[in-house]
């Protein structure tokens, strides 16, 4: 009986010691083990909002796709594995074998593999080869608006364009979370994701259809003119909304690395060009506004050659006497030079700044400010050459903004490209609204200027932009490019341009077309104006703008 009592006591003591060991001495270790059993670490991959056009058409979207990886020490027959994988993935076996022979615990075999590749690799059943789901960005419209949209890197971070400028809004970083699981390893109830703020969807002011029309006509014109590059911007002159923005040749953002980096650049905001004669309407507008000249005042244009200090200003044709209106109509450099002299450096500079030259537009994507030197540094030659748009540089977007002033009755607009941001999690919205800017010209001056620009298209250098049935205003431009190696303006390299307002009564759009180094003809009226016409012809149909007093029928009697 005593022995039995001692035995029970000893057993109890043993239990106590074991309990003490488990509960006190090994507490942390077993707690960890239990936690590992009950909980699992789950990585929620980084998310990225969509980019859509103004109608909600998806221009960029992220999907989870398989990325193949290897745990090298688990792959037994590396040679065979490399050979099998190379057949599926179309990569050299030696490259894969090199990865499989590495000392690392984890190597990528192929990131962002196609679903077919993933299935085939899975069927191979090679031990040590597996896949994880990673987000990949898709751009369904391929080259369309690619320099504006930009692209993301393999780790889903914005590298160029809007993807980069709005990265902090578009991107929600990957989140690692601890979640409860049952005895079979199944996750019990996914917890709510932590509030990381993003991602947000971007809704642009862009219209995919308008963008397509712009790019199609611009590409056709660029090929016909044998130009090096082509740039186009279409903007709503009243709101500042950018409807289309193209920079050619562009690239396919789905495989951006296959293209030279210079194609990634958005020349509409990053390209600097000397505007040439498309700047003349601002000079004439300012001079009319200041009462320096009147519409019908006559100036002597020196028979085509005008000496100012050491330089000779030339016109394409030898004009004698031209009215101010005709100076614009025939794009006389000498006439513009004389108006600029009458205007004076400080006054002209003040107007150019007010039109938006030499300052950022604030459009929200990376942009150049352009170069407009302060007037205290101008010589007389600088003043007269600035009269016809040489001696300063601006971006095509700045030109679009400046022409919007004329089109909307005198107010500078602030352009923008992101119409709205919508938070994916809860639908919270942050909208952009047109910001009324500074008044630059009076309504009356703009009306007169618009009539002058209508005549440029109807009877002047811009005839090839005229569109039957619709009033169009515009101005042609041909500027010499500065050659930094020779230290003077090139005689072979030019920028041909046309800026049009469609239609000129109750305008819907300002269209800027620029061709860099065209070969077929150097004149904006010859190579850029027809591009505008092609765009305008399709836009009036797309927008359903009413014709004025004319009807076009197809030969079989149907209306166009």
């Amino acid at each position, binding site marked *: 009986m005593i022995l039995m009592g001692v035995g029970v006591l000893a057993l109890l003591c043993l239990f106590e010691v074991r309990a003490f060991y488990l509960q006190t001495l090994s507490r942390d270790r077993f707690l960890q083990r239990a936690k590992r059993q009950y909980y699992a670490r789950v990585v929620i991959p980084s998310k990225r909002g969509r980019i859509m056009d103004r109608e909600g058409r998806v221009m960029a979207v992220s999907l989870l796709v398989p990325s193949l990886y290897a745990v090298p020490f688990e792959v037994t027959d590396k040679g065979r594995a490399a050979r099998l994988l190379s057949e599926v993935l179309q990569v050299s076996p030696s490259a894969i074998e090199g990865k499989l022979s590495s000392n690392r615990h984890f190597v990528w075999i192929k990131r962002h593999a196609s679903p077919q590749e993933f299935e085939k690799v899975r069927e191979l059943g090679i031990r040590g080869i597996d896949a994880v789901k990673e987000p990949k960005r898709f751009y369904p419209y391929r080259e369309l608006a690619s320099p504006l949209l930009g692209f993301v890197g393999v780790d889903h971070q914005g590298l160029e364009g809007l993807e980069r400028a709005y990265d902090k809004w578009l991107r929600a970083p990957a989140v690692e979370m601890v979640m409860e699981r049952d005895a079979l390893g199944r996750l019990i109830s996914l917890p709510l994701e932590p509030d990381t703020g993003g991602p947000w969807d971007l809704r642009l002011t862009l219209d995919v259809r308008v963008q397509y029309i712009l790019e199609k006509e611009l590409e056709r014109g660029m090929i016909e003119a044998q130009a090096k590059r082509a740039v186009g911007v279409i903007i709503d002159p009243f709101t500042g909304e950018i409807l289309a923005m193209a920079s050619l040749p562009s690239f396919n953002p789905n495989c951006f690395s296959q293209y030279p980096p210079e194609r990634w650049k958005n020349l509409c905001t990053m390209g600097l060009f000397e505007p040439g004669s498309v700047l003349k309407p601002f000079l004439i507008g300012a001079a009319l506004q200041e009462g320096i000249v009147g519409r019908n005042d006559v100036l002597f244009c020196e028979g085509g050659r005008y000496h100012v200090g050491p330089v000779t200003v030339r016109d394409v044709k030898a004009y004698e006497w031209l009215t101010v209106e005709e100076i614009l109509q025939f794009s006389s450099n000498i006439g513009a030079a004389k108006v600029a002299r009458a205007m004076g450096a400080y006054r002209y500079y003040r107007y150019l700044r007010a039109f938006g030259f030499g300052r950022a537009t604030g459009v929200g994507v990376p942009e150049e400010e352009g170069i407009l030197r302060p007037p205290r540094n101008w010589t007389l030659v600088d003043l007269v050459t600035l009269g016809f748009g040489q001696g300063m540089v601006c971006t095509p977007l700045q030109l679009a903004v400046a022409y919007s002033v004329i089109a909307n009755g005198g107010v500078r607009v602030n352009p923008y490209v992101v119409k709205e941001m919508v938070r994916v999690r809860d639908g919270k919205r942050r909208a952009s609204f047109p910001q009324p800017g500074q008044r630059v010209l009076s309504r009356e001056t703009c009306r007169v200027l618009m009539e002058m620009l209508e005549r440029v298209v109807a009877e002047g250098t811009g005839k090839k932009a005229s569109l039957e049935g619709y009033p169009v205003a515009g101005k042609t431009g041909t500027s010499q490019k500065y050659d930094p190696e020779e230290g003077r303006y090139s005689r072979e390299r030019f920028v041909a341009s046309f800026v049009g307002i469609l239609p000129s009564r109750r305008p819907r759009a300002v269209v800027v077309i620029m061709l860099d180094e065209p070969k077929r003809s150097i004149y904006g009226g010859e190579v850029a104006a027809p591009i505008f016409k092609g765009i305008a012809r399709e836009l009036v149909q797309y927008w359903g703008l009413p014709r004025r007093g004319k009807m076009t*029928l197809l030969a079989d009697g149907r209306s166009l």
Partner: protein
Amino acid sequence: MRAVLFGLLLILSGLLLLTVVRIKALHLKYEISGLQQEKGELMRRKKELELELALLTSPAEIERRAKAELGMRYPRAHEVIVIGVER
């Protein structure tokens, strides 16, 4: 004695209730987990369909198919007549 039995019954009932509630909660968690996974799957499918829609309705694709499959083209200059011209 009766009071002790009543107390034990009460405790057992409480434990039973607690067990039922916990099991119910666990089932709900499984259900939520399943629904969340389903939601994730549907969201993924929606994005795939959006992508497919954008690919199929892109103006370039429509123009290509109109030309290739329907034989359509833009009217040539001589096929357009302007009538009723007035100033």
